[in-house]
């Protein structure tokens, strides 16, 4: 399994980092840390440019995050036009890991505030697709 079912529209499938998808299907949003030098990455990297090792471990992005910024997208590009409006956001989690994802549709636009607390969790989309999203805590 690669990235073919990731997000609303995926553009490529095969990647060494596709273990990410196995973890996501199992309910966890995970990223990589190099076993050799300890450098951690998000988005995940199957290789470590710092020490040139390709021996990486997966760890879960956990805990409470905060909303750094967001935008309500009304103008969806081709492939996303029926999805709009949707809310894109950047959230920051433990260890300063910043993630781009959508805000859950359960959050009302009036309730969104930069700095608010967020949780990050896997989400099932129509047509057997999967992604992760931000939820209110």
């Amino acid at each position, binding site marked *: 399994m690669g990235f073919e079912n990731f997000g609303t529209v995926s553009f490529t499938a095969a990647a060494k980092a596709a273990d990410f998808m196995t973890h996501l299907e199992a309910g966890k949003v995970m990223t990589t840390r190099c076993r050799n030098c300890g450098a951690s990455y998000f988005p995940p990297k199957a290789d470590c440019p710092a020490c040139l090792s390709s021996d990486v471990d997966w760890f879960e992005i956990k805990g409470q995050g905060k909303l750094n910024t967001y935008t309500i997208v009304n103008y969806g*590009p081709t492939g996303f036009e029926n999805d709009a409006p949707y809310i894109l956001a950047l959230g920051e989690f433990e260890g300063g890991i910043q993630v781009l994802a959508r805000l859950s549709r359960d959050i009302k636009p009036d309730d969104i505030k930069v700095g608010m607390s967020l949780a990050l969790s896997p989400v099932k989309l129509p047509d057997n697709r999967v992604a992760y999203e931000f939820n209110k805590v």
Partner: protein
Amino acid sequence: MAEVAIVGVGQSVFSRDCGVSIRELSFEAFKEAMEGLDITTGDIDASIICSAPEYDKQRSPAGLISEYLELTPKPSFYVETVCSSSSTGLRIAWSLVKAGLHKVVAVIGFQKMSELSSRDAAERMGRGADIIWESPFGLTMPAGYAMYARAHMAKYGTTEEHLAKVRVKNSHYGAANPKATYRKELGLEDILNSEVITSPLKKFDCCANADGASCIIVARGDVAKGITQVPVWIIGLGAATDTMTMAGRKSLTGLECAKEAGKQAYKMAGLKPQDIDVAEVHDCFTVSEILAYEDLGFAKPGEGVGLIEDKQTYADGKIPVNVDGGLLSKGHPIGATGGSQVRTIVRQLRRQATEAQVKGAEVGLVHNIGGIGQYGNVTILRR
């Protein structure tokens, strides 16, 4: 070592739909750049063709354009950094001349965006983000800049009205630019009432997709003086990158690539922000111009809105910015944009600007950004 000058600049009319081919569009820009120069096409030693390939039907356009302009058999190649492609082309032209490989180099940028609908163009630009990790969420260029705008508002109290004032200024100057796509003056209410594209950005906070071409002719200092009476000298160059992903960004209230490129260019020129007499900055969105004021040191972080509030970036202000209408009025034909910005500054320094001439301009700056701040080029020119 030899100095490097710009001897000629040109651009086509920018429009929503040019109705001609990319070779003909490029000819329009090339012709204007060559007008009045004491050289012919045969004196051009190499050409650098700049565009973003996702809009082109033509594959490998460098070969096509060099044949049409009769630049063969001289070397020609293609350069891409999305929206900053042609200022990257200028940087490479400088180094080719400086290294002694060539005496005269043409930098030609073009884009025919009318090949695609705006929604398709937005999808292609969305793939100018990380296609595994971010494009699948529906990230677009306006959405990326909108997130910078929201973060700037949250940190500094910037408002939608502040942003709209940038468009009011740029539409004022764009109205006088015969090469601009939009030549209508817009009022604050027009902008604030336009439809929301991606909050807080509305339609008139956004540049429009356009067709257009630009051309810059670069020459070695000693030959430059024989080609034109008014060479304009390239005295500062800076270039930098930031992460492809939004997730990787350390700052959301300024573009790190622009700050770094600016620092390099000021250092090379031996100048400070207050030495700049006129600037062209990459106002792909209204917020982008505010970020540029701060990233280039025209204002302190968070104080950029003060410049537009006090009209200090109008032609008679402390630091005139985008007094040709900017991308917001001219339209943004991706590969042609940097060359168009350079053209405006060269014309300002030659005292040939027709939209609004900044009095006594000696030193000008061009800030050209690729993507959502993935690539940044800052160039400083002196007459």
